[in-house]
């Protein structure tokens, strides 16, 4: 009896200690992540904004591909529509930022809903092809439509005074990322998430279970487009100018690949992978040019193709050896931190 109490007591102490340790580690990691924002100056504030925007795009693709099982190789259409909508409202109509971002989100959602209606008829590989062709068409037709986007010269998207500083803007991006993460979490842990899982696994079975397949598919597309448009709006104000060539179709392919590398349905994995690929083109050239020894084939033009090259190598490794992506690699850590791994 006494030993039993002692063991119980020790477990209690251990668990309390474990909880304290876990909380400390989470806070330490968050602080570590916030360090560049505090100490890195404007350069790092810019980079963190970009990372947050990429993470929103990654979560947007995750909603569509990870949760609903639909594929989109034309995501640059949704992001681009959002960017141009925000730029149009900010520079032509002088609308406040919140209004512009809302319009960007709505524009992205409407475009995605249009593609979603096609996805009701056309599925699987054919849908991948349609979205690819749609992305190309959006890039060359809509984004070059002079009255709306300013043609090849691009559209300006000045930041309003409140977020004109890079730090304030980074906080705004992180805030929106937090909002999107919250929506994703609520989506997955409620009825809608389970319905989407049913649609993903088998549409016929889902409909026999009373799941409105059409409705949930359209909802997944709209929600994905909403987040993509929002990311586009933020991108417009981040860069302060938007051009059609920002949304080439290789960009969309890299976005899909980065989401898969992050691990479909893993929030943390997608965010980390997206942030990594957002920062890679910005930091890699500096890093390489500061190396003491320069291989002869490295030059400015090559820096430009190295990041996609690295994405693809990572993708092929991920698909081949751990299909769950970063999320799978991190799952022991996340399970320990959230305490799910322990027997209670």
């Amino acid at each position: 009896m006494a030993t039993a109490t002692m063991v119980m007591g020790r477990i209690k102490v251990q668990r309390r200690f474990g909880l304290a340790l876990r909380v400390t580690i989470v806070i330490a990691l968050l602080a570590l992540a916030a360090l560049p924002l505090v100490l890195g100056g404007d350069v790092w504030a810019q980079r963190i904004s970009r990372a947050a925007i990429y993470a929103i795009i990654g979560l947007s693709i995750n909603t569509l591909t990870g949760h609903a099982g639909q594929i989109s190789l034309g995501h640059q259409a949704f992001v681009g529509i959002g960017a141009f909508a925000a730029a149009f409202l900010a520079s032509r109509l002088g609308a406040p930022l919140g209004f512009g971002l809302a319009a960007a989100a709505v524009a992205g959602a409407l475009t995605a809903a249009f593609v979603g209606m096609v996805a009701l008829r056309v599925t699987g590989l054919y849908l991948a092809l349609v979205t690819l062709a749609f992305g190309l068409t959006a890039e060359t037709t809509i984004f070059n439509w002079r009255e709306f986007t300013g043609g090849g010269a691009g559209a300006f998207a000045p930041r309003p005074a409140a977020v004109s500083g890079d730090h304030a803007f980074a906080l705004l991006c992180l805030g929106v990322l937090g909002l999107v993460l919250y929506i994703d979490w609520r989506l997955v842990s409620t009825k809608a998430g389970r319905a989407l899982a049913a649609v993903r696994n088998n549409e016929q079975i889902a409909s026999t279970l009373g799941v409105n397949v059409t409705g949930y598919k359209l909802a997944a597309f709209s929600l994905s487009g909403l987040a993509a448009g929002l990311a586009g709006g933020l991108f417009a104000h981040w860069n302060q100018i938007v051009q059609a060539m920002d949304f080439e179709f290789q960009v969309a392919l890299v976005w899909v690949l980065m989401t898969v590398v992050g691990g479909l349905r893993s929030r943390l994995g997608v965010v980390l992978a997206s942030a990594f690929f957002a920062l890679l083109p910005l930091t890699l050239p500096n890093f390489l040019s500061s190396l003491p020894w320069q291989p002869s084939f490295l030059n400015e033009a090559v820096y430009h193709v190295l990041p996609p090259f690295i994405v693809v190598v990572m993708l092929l490794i991920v698909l081949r050896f751990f299909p769950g992506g970063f999320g799978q690699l991190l799952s022991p850590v996340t399970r320990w931190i959230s305490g799910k791994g322990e027997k209670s």
Partner: protein
Amino acid sequence: MGAFLALGLFQGAVYGLLAVGIVLVYKAKRVFNFAQGEFGGVAAFTAFAIVVGAGLPYWVGVVGGLAAAVLMGLVVERVIVRPLESSSRTIMLVALVGVALFTIAIIVLLGQPIPRVMPPLIAGGGVNILGAGILPQQLILMAVLAVLAGAMAWFFKTDLGLAVLASSQDTRAAQVVGISPVAVSRLVWGMAALLGGIAGLLYAPVGIFTPGFMTLTMLVPAFAAAVLGGMTSLPGAFIGGLAIGVVQNLGIYYLGQQLKVPGAAELGVFALLMLVLLIRPQGLLGKEA
């Protein structure tokens, strides 16, 4: 107008040639091969390095280019396709997109992103067809497309072709009667790479070529051509290719030149693709399923 029609037909021949390879892989493996264009890219750049870089005869360049393409096809089959055989088709598609981007990146790393000019098979001026100057190279391309589409259609009537189809329909049952799925897979990817290589070698001398030239502008129209033809029909790929080329150029003529819509070529292809998929998803010559 007539000139646009002729240009479209001969542009369409390239799409048709790529589409034949896409249809071959789809018939045999039920996979959308997004790396089909880059087989041609690899062949064109290898041939360029041999002919222009090393100054060797043209036929050495052709053989070397095709060998490089087939080698790439076999490597892709062994390293990417076969290990992913059991995963979903979407994952396979993403992986093949990865292969295409990877190949473009390798070409840029080795060759720098500069435009190149490849000497044509037959030098000389253009022939006037409906008011458009058509190069001898493009005439060869059209002829080769017709021959290859016919040859592939015939291939699926031979014992070997039937074995490929049997393996595609029921791998296990085919294995029981002695058809090795591994051998079929190698054969199909090798042949697809050879077709892609031929397309790249024939198309590179038509204009200036840059890294990724076969994927960035050719691949989506080629897929549209394959879908229009019915995805499983080789004569369909031929007709689809020419039709997409014509529609694209009519789009440029009516929408681009007259109405000043930007990106008219892409818009035309997208509209036709949507039309086919929504109204006649089995395509012009495709059979059900």
